[in-house]
């Protein structure tokens, strides 16, 4: 399923300034961000971005403030005009659309959730959720029915006649999410959607999103500055720094093989037990070989923390990883699990003490 690409971003450049298009060539020839600013007073926003975003999956784009992540997501529905490059969705270049086509595209194909919610303060919850449908020109009844369904789905039944200001931040973002889902668009853009929320509510909203996603299978592009959030949500993660992509891959790729010191410094604090999957740390066994009799089977793709919890619960120190059909693939030991869960520095120390 992840093989199908929903959004192809190709050689995307964004330079802020009056003569951005002319500056693209200078950047292509290797001019740096600081040189561009000093010599031409133009700000390099995005440089040569290439991403394939899989259909029906969650693509996270992570970066600190100023990395260009919000600029990038706004190119996908063209809230920001590019300096060069293309974004292909269903073989159509979003960046080449006419105004009418773009409006149509935004109404039916793509929707967005905003960091500070972007709700209409003078409209009630139900009218906010119905906004996309209203813009499409649906009848009043279709608007209310459609909106009501999503209000119930995000758990806001009973609040439909409240104004946004009367709701807490978490509830307001549920309204934002319901509004984005109500238009039934295939692509959902989420710009730091949960960053303005308290940590507990944020985790809560992440669960709401993951829950909905198991059913809806939307193509989600999620922007965040929070690595834990990125690792929890992202099937694919792209890390952006100073307008350039520094690494792309799965959560596991990024934690286990950080591309440079910048990323290593990020992933050092990560809870690895929640990211790394059992097959990464198992000792492979030859086909046909049977695991030890007291060993418990654990499904491929399980995260280390979950495997450790299960083994502790069963009171065993050995387990084996099985594939989809129940065939054993490799063995696990509690010791190996623990070693993989601690950070590389600690792991080195453990290994050294053993010698």
């Amino acid at each position, binding site marked *: 399923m992840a093989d199908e690409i929903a959004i192809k971003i190709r050689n995307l450049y964004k330079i802020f300034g009056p003569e951005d298009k002319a500056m693209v060539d200078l950047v292509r020839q290797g001019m740096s961000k600081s040189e561009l600013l000093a010599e031409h007073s133009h700000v390099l926003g995005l440089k040569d971005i290439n991403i394939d975003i899989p259909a029906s999956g969650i693509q996270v784009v992570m970066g600190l403030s100023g990395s260009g992540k919000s600029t990038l997501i706004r190119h996908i529905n063209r809230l920001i005009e590019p300096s060069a490059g293309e974004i292909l969705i269903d073989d159509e270049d979003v960046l080449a659309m006419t105004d009418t086509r773009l409006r149509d595209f935004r*109404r039916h194909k793509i929707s967005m959730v*905003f960091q500070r919610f972007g709700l*209409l303060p003078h409209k009630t919850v139900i009218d906010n959720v119905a906004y996309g449908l209203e813009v499409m020109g649906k009848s009043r009844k279709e608007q209310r029915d459609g909106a009501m369904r999503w209000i119930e789905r995000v758990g806001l039944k009973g609040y439909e006649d409240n104004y946004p*200001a009367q709701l807490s931040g978490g509830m307001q973002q549920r309204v934002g999410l319901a509004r984005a889902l109500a238009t039934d668009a295939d692509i959902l853009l989420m710009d730091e959607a949960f960053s303005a929320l308290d940590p507990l509510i944020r985790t809560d909203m992440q669960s709401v999103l993951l829950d909905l996603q198991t059913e809806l299978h939307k193509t989600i592009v999620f922007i965040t500055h929070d690595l834990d959030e990125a690792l929890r949500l992202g099937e694919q993660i792209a890390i952006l720094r100073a307008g350039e992509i520094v690494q792309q891959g799965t959560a596991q790729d990024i934690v286990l093989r950080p591309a440079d010191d910048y990323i290593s410094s990020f992933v050092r604090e990560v809870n690895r037990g929640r990211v790394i999957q059992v097959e990464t740390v198992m000792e492979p066994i030859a086909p046909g070989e049977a695991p030890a009799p007291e060993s418990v089977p654990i499904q491929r793709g399980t995260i280390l923390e979950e495997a450790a919890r299960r083994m502790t619960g069963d009171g065993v120190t050995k387990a084996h990883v099985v594939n989809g059909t129940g065939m054993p693939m490799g063995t696990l030991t509690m010791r190996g699990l623990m070693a993989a869960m601690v950070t590389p520095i600690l792991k080195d120390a453990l290994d050294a003490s053993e010698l």
Partner: protein
Amino acid sequence: MDWLTEFPQLAGRDLRLMSRTIDQYYRSFSRAYGDTIEAIFRPLLEFLLWFERLLIHTPWWIILLVIVGIVWLASRSKAITVGTFVALILIGVFGMWEDTMRTLSIIVVCTLMSIIIGMPIGIIMSRSNKVQAVINPILDVMQTMPSFVYLIPIVMLLGIGLIPGLLVVVIYAMPPIIRLTNLGIRLVDKEVLEAANAFGSSGWQKLTQVQLPLALPTIMAGINQTIMMALAMVVVASLIGVRGLGQPVLQAITNQYFTQGVLNGLAIVAIAIIFDRSSQAYGKRLQRHREAAHG
């Protein structure tokens, strides 16, 4: 070396010639087009006269009830409504009912005209910095030019009467609504606007669903100011024959009738307060959605 001690000004003869030439051109212009321009304003005059007659010829107690009713609907405030009732009764008792109705009718028409003309200008201004750069200085001139000065060309063009009076008042009172419509739309939260764009709103949908509703409190403040400025012009307009509360004031100034001046002045103040309080209370009621239930 005269120019060191005295400003090297144009010769008096040249200046007089210049003024006379310009005045002559303008005079021939107004002779040629005065009637046409008057004809253009004819329907407006008819409407104004009709409205004035309506206010004066309807029995006073019906008008009183209607005004008190409108104030109640707009403000939902007992204090403002009772105050309005008392003020109108006093105006009637002191013999100023008819003049008050005349003033009321011209204020209502001027405010409506200012809104109808001013709001679209404000909207256009909010969409382009260039337009804003052109219109802003014009508004500055409209607001700071002493009103007696633009009385002159208007009287030369249209003579004295209701229409020139109306024009003078509208020119003076319109800038706030233009400025505050522009400001209100420009102050609309960028993220909300971005959200409207992200869902594919058309320009018209954005204007009517997002920009105008969110700018409404600011626009209401502009309308409020427009009304106040229109009232301030009532006395000046009476100089060119607009009847109403301004004329007795003018008469009082020239004849030193202290009491008459104060009474009519107070009647203007009373109308101003009624308009101000009820339009502000209405503006506040429109914003009830901003009251948060949560901290």
